[in-house]
């Protein structure tokens, strides 16, 4: 195979898609501006809407508009919320002594999905990354300190990505939390379940050995 093979003809054809309707073209442009949607998929979605009842499109746009104008950040934990305080923070059955610190809203969803955690959350909105111009002042760090000052808070769990920037952030928060009467912990790092030791990288395996846990049979 060489580089001189002519390209299949559909590529330039689709790049300069020719529409008979300006309305269709605008709709395609709007869909294609979304992440993960190319122009072909955008066209498919638009034609699908055209072939359906006009009500369906109205429902879609209305729900999107309502979502966008109604959604806000929870005043307590900065998670997405319909109200001033999100449903997690408002749920009195949850353990109010534990706060799990995460980078973003998707992490909240991932942890909720596990159904293993019954405490509260705190969404930082990123990690400290000076190269990207993100310092602690750009994160929701101050509100975490305010929450930690409350008596009811006993433990703060750092569920932040195990990257250099994540470590910097944990380091920074932990330092600032040391005057409060709270226990700070991080999620365990180690060999993944279902993984084979042979394929674990040396650093992870080394840390897993150092931070080994007692084995309790029959529990």
């Amino acid at each position, binding site marked *: *195979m*060489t*580089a001189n093979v002519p390209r299949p003809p559909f590529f330039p054809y689709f790049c300069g898609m020719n529409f008979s309707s300006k309305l269709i073209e605008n709709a395609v442009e709007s869909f294609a501006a979304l992440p993960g949607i190319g122009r072909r998929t955008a066209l498919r979605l638009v034609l699908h809407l055209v072939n359906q009842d006009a009500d369906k499109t109205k429902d879609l746009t209305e729900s999107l508009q309502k979502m966008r104008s109604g959604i806000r950040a929870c005043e307590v934990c900065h998670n997405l919320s319909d109200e001033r305080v999100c449903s997690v923070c408002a749920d009195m059955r949850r353990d109010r002594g534990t706060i799990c610190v995460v980078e973003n809203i998707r992490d909240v969803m991932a942890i909720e999905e596990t159904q293993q955690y019954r405490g509260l959350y705190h969404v930082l909105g990123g990690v*400290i*990354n*000076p*190269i990207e*111009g993100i*310092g*602690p002042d750009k994160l929701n760090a101050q509100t975490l300190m305010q929450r930690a000052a409350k008596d009811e808070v006993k433990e703060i769990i750092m569920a932040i990505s195990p990257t*250099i*920037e994540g*470590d*910097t952030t944990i*380091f*920074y928060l932990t*330092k600032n939390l040391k005057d409060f009467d709270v226990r700070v912990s991080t999620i365990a790092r180690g060999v993944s379940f279902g993984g084979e030791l042979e394929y674990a*990288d*040396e*650093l992870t395996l*080394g840390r897993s050995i150092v931070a080994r846990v007692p084995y309790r049979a029959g529990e």
Partner: protein
Amino acid sequence: MHLKTLTLTNFKNYDLQTLAFSERLNCLTGRNGMGKTNVLDAIYYLCMCKSHFGINDRLVMQRGADFFRLEGDFVREEKKEKIVAKVIPRKRKEIERNGVVYKRLIDHIGLLPVVMAAPDDTVIAREGSEERRRFLDNTLSQSDPIYLRHLVAYNRLLSQRNALLKQFHAERRFDENLLQIFDEQMQEPAAFIVKARQQFLENFEPILKENYAAISEDQEGIACVYNSKLLTENFADLLHDAREKDRVLQRTTIGIHKDDLAFKIDAHALKVFASQGQLKSFILALKLAQYEFLRQHKGIAPLLLLDDIFDKLDRGRVRSLINLILEKNYGQTFITDTDENRLQDILSAAGSDFKIFSVDEGTVDG
């Protein structure tokens, strides 16, 4: 360890080329600019995930092409290892081992140890300290995967710390507590790297002396000394003391990224004192010592890539160099040379297993 076959697609001046190598000695001959070195660089790429010449992947790709691909069938400790490198601009570079794509390229470094000697290696002795650190890091990254992890971490923290210093300058403020976080985080990787470099030099210097003595007919004594402020002083204190300087200059002025190696010949600085010939012998000794060190530490013979090292050497010295390579039982070796007849004569006389390839305008016969 050896490379059985290599396939290059759109790599530098090669359209598509497959080469089958001798397990012992491979010579690539041809005129200048025909693509001899490119074959060595392709082999280096499959071992180190990048070009030896520090050039961008886009420039490694053949002009006008929209991807390049390298495929190598290696045999390592009697097991087949198929390594494939696929590079498409604007996409993530992919390195595959036996059909599985590496999640991180650094996991591949050290699997297939390699040493390359090229004519521009004299920069290691002549230029600034960066070249010598590159030599150190190249050797240690291949011999110890944890070294590379710490090095990547340190460099990342260093970039973040420098970005922070620039940010402080632009915003006309200075947050010592935040800077302190980076200082503390840098301690662990820096300590590991200093210790690793120090230990390396202890093992490496005797090997270097031995190799220099074997190559050079002169009887000069050579030395190789590791210089780091972190050897004698506490890194945290050094960073603390340099804080004002760092603030003004907007970069980190102390750390393992300032370490250096001092090469000496008869107790004088090599850079100033050595003749051209001595410099050349020294650099070749350095590379052969790197080879020996990696072989001892990994327990497998690395690939040896010798690019145009016979340049400006007379026939007698070329013969003794080739005999040295054959005698000392290096593993699979690749040599480029512009003079086919010279190599043919010497190798036929030596009676070893070898293969000669003739390279012409991006095609290889052999």
